[in-house]
């Protein structure tokens, strides 16, 4: 036991400082949070949607990746499923192509046309695209497939907005 006795005055001043400090902190904390809020927002989440695809499992062969997000249509909320064809190009760079045919919006498949192997094929009007998404001249589509923005987080693939193909 300590021999030092705490006087009434000391006790009261310690207590008041402590309680006052807590109150001040309680008021200031939310204010500080508001002020720095934009900084605290997670940036990786942003507009990117998680998929179940491990980046390390990707090969040079395009793989169909399904991912879902919630979409609101006026009052009707629904889970929208989106698809991407994802592969690694010769330099090991990830390529995520939108499967929406640039002709009239059907969903294209990889390598399903026997007479034209290793191309994206649209079953509706037999449109074709090469592996990098560029439309084959002479088939109905007039533009290359759109490309998804992508992100990698904890080894998983995240997909974002679709952008027009650059190398047209």
């Amino acid at each position, binding site marked *: 036991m300590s021999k030092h006795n705490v006087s009434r005055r000391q006790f009261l001043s310690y207590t008041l400082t402590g309680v006052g400090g807590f109150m001040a902190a309680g008021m200031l904390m939310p204010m500080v949070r508001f002020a720095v809020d934009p900084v605290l927002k997670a940036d990786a989440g942003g507009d990117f949607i998680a998929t179940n695809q491990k980046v390390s499992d990707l090969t040079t062969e395009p793989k169909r990746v399904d991912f879902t997000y919630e979409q609101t249509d006026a009052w009707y909320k629904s889970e929208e499923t989106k698809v991407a064809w994802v592969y690694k190009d010769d330099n090991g760079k990830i390529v995520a192509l939108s499967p929406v045919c640039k*002709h*009239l*919006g*059907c*969903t294209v498949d990889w390598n399903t046309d026997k007479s034209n192997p290793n191309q994206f094929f649209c*079953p*509706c009007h037999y449109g074709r695209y090469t592996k990098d998404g560029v439309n084959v001249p002479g088939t109905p589509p007039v533009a290359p497939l759109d490309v998804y923005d992508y992100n990698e987080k904890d080894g998983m693939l995240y997909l974002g907005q679709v952008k027009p193909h650059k190398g047209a």
Partner: protein
Amino acid sequence: MRWTPKDIDTFDKAREYIDTVLVPLVPVAFENGMKQSASMYDFITLLTAAIEHQFKGRIMLMPSLAYLSSVDIDKRMELVNDWKNEIGSFQNIYFITSDSEWKAREPEFAGTLIWMPSIPLEHFGEEQVRTMVGDQARQVFDLFKRKWNEA
């Protein structure tokens, strides 16, 4: 294409490419089988949405043609024939349903009836529903691809 103004605009510009119409036939019952008819509607709605998604540029998905289960099948057949005549300008017209009553009238449809047994989706989670409807839809995909290849 769906039955929306935006898709109809696209359709007007690319008429020659959209040669197939899909009409869902959905029964509505109030006394007996209310829940079953709702279940069929649910299933057919999801299934046709999957089909439309795959073949957006070639298939026009019509609003569901709903009818009362209590109405006599001959009368209903008339309704279907009216639709058929009206839509006649399309090369292919398909009716899709889970209602087994149509099955008996299949010859009258002359190969344009697609009958898919309904799955009671309400017992399953979202992920399972997607997989099951996707599997069923794939059967219909093949059917369409085959039909188009014949032409």
